[in-house]
């Protein structure tokens, strides 16, 4: 019983919203009707777009497992290393703070400082699921323009930080006990 309630919990806002909408229509509350009009447009938009993006993302995940890329990333540097690190980042999902532990892992496996920061840049804004949604909402030309200018900047930041940190004994630490985070 309790577990069933947990499963429904994410939908509580929707329930409240729909109840408010029903009341608006029942009592002829005009602003409510207008809000619902917006919502209906968005919902239709979402249903026709998002499921198909996730079909692509799921298939991509199965055919190009990220472990496969990760295996080749440690020692290599140069152009191939950069490309692999970007590809690895593109295959990830989740928010940026989820990339820090991976950066730590890469660092421990011997990835260069440059590649680690290129990884962070690519992770933050070139993940494939995100690109899919971005194209869906803002159009392919927006995404292309943003991606094309982003890549050289991220690589530049990687080189810059590597140059700055070269003689400074830079290490990436694993945070000690994560207090309440």
């Amino acid at each position, binding site marked *: 019983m309790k577990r069933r309630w947990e499963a429904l919990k994410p939908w509580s806002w929707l329930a409240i919203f729909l109840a408010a909408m029903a009341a608006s229509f029942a009592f002829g509350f005009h602003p409510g009707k207008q809000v619902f009009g917006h919502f209906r447009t968005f919902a239709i938009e979402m249903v026709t777009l998002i499921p*198909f993006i996730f079909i692509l993302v799921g298939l991509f995940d199965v055919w190009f497992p990220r472990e496969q890329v990760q295996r080749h990333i440690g020692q290599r540097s140069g152009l191939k290393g950069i490309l692999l690190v970007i590809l690895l980042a593109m295959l990830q999902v989740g928010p940026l703070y989820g990339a820090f532990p991976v950066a730590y892992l890469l660092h421990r496996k011997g990835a260069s400082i440059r590649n680690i920061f290129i990884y962070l840049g690519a992770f933050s804004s070139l993940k494939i699921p995100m690109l899919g949604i971005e194209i869906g909402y803002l159009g392919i030309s927006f995404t292309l323009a943003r991606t094309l200018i982003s890549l050289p900047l991220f690589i530049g930041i990687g080189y810059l930080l590597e140059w700055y940190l070269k003689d400074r004994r830079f290490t990436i630490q694993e945070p000690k006990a994560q207090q309440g985070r």
Partner: protein
Amino acid sequence: MIDSAVVFIVLALGATLVSFLKDRRKTAQGLQKGWKMFLNVLPSFVNILMLVSVALYVVPSSLIVRTLGPGSGWVGMAMAALVGSIALIPGFISYPIAAVLVQQGASYATVAIFMTTLMLVGVMTLPLESSYFGRRVAVLRNALNFLAAIVIGLFVGWVL
């Protein structure tokens, strides 16, 4: 919007067909994975759509155009950069907002700056980042990324 939906539907069906012909088991796995990810983001997605629906009624589009539109210039961009750097909004959720801003008349440069600072700069997660890289490097990385985000935004606005 509808055009891109058609493109994605065709792409998704085509990819599924090719994948199915090559390996049925993998295809089933992939579809399952995608479906699970979709269910995971669905509640937060629906929530933000409700929020945006209400916000669209409360905040008139003329106000959006005035503060973030083509005429808003540097002030609009600075505001977009500030909000984007501080706010913690997952990408899945920020794209519908960005699309609405564009529809309501915000300029591409401003929306791009908002999106890129959101993705690249994390003021709120700075303490966490510092615990990995040290404070100095974390601040440096965010500062460099902030500059990059501005350049990216200006470039996108110039191209589109």
